[in-house]
């Protein structure tokens, strides 16, 4: 008979580490999907997910069980991804003059006929990835959670551990940072 999550957690806390494996198996797809939002290279993604599971194992004693295990785990995952962003701040000064031809074409199309520039195009996705890579860690986290994953401010506060006013302030700054990057991209390309 399959054991419930609560039983597995209780067994791990009693010292039966093997009972942790079914939890890893069940929730790894969710954790991988989250990590792939913040890291590109597969080796980095695997490192993040491994780190999430190690933290989950070590901090399992702090899981009170009043909320689903998945919520607790996702909080850990988001915080680990944020730590990763802070620790691996790439060269955020990369120039927009390095745009690929499809990206340039998409931008040209947007300038001449904004309606014809399709948001489903791969070039648009590459452009947004490029911009996300250049955002500061808090801005990237907030834009991902708020704008791309469409989460509420309250949810983000719970996931990140930030207060609601702080989330609002950081969201305002993140949008401004993104607009500034877009302005820089436009200036690099057209001026």
């Amino acid at each position, binding site marked *: 008979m399959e054991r419930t999550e609560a039983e597995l957690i209780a067994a791990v806390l009693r010292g039966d580490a093997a009972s942790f494996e079914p939890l890893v198996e069940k929730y790894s797809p969710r954790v991988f999907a989250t990590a792939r939002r913040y890291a590109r290279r597969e080796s980095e993604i695997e490192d993040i997910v*491994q780190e999430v599971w190690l933290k989950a194992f070590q901090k399992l004693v702090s899981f009170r069980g009043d909320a689903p295990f998945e919520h607790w785990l996702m909080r850990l995952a988001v915080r680990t991804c944020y730590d990763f962003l802070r620790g691996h701040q790439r060269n955020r000064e990369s120039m927009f003059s390095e745009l690929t031809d499809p990206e340039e074409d998409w931008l040209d199309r947007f300038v001449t006929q904004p309606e014809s520039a399709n948001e489903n195009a791969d070039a648009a996705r590459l452009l947004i990835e490029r911009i996300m890579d250049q955002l500061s860690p808090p801005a990237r986290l907030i834009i991902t959670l708020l704008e791309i994953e469409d989460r509420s401010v309250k949810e983000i506060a719970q996931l990140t551990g930030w207060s609601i006013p702080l989330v609002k302030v950081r969201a305002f700054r993140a949008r401004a940072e993104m607009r500034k990057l877009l302005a820089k991209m436009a200036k690099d390309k057209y001026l």
Partner: protein
Amino acid sequence: MKLPELQKKLISAARTQTVSDHVPYAFEKRVMAYIRSCPAVDVTALWAQALWRSAGACLAVVAVLGAVSIFTPHSTKPAPGDLSQEFEKTMLAALDSDYSR
């Protein structure tokens, strides 16, 4: 270029992008091996270790100060250049002169 519109389009582009939830083969085995290889962090043990170390250092300081106080020769009369006595005399000079009147 209309930047707010461009921002909106690019965000929509990011939303349409599906994120893969693919898990590498036998990843859970790898995680379990990694967890087993990492020494368990016992916070109370770390505290206990730090406290024992600081207790040792405190005992060493006490021993040195004790030895200094035992082996330093004491004299009942203050030395002529005793700073504490000179300081006290200076501080209480005004009072002494009042009482002597």
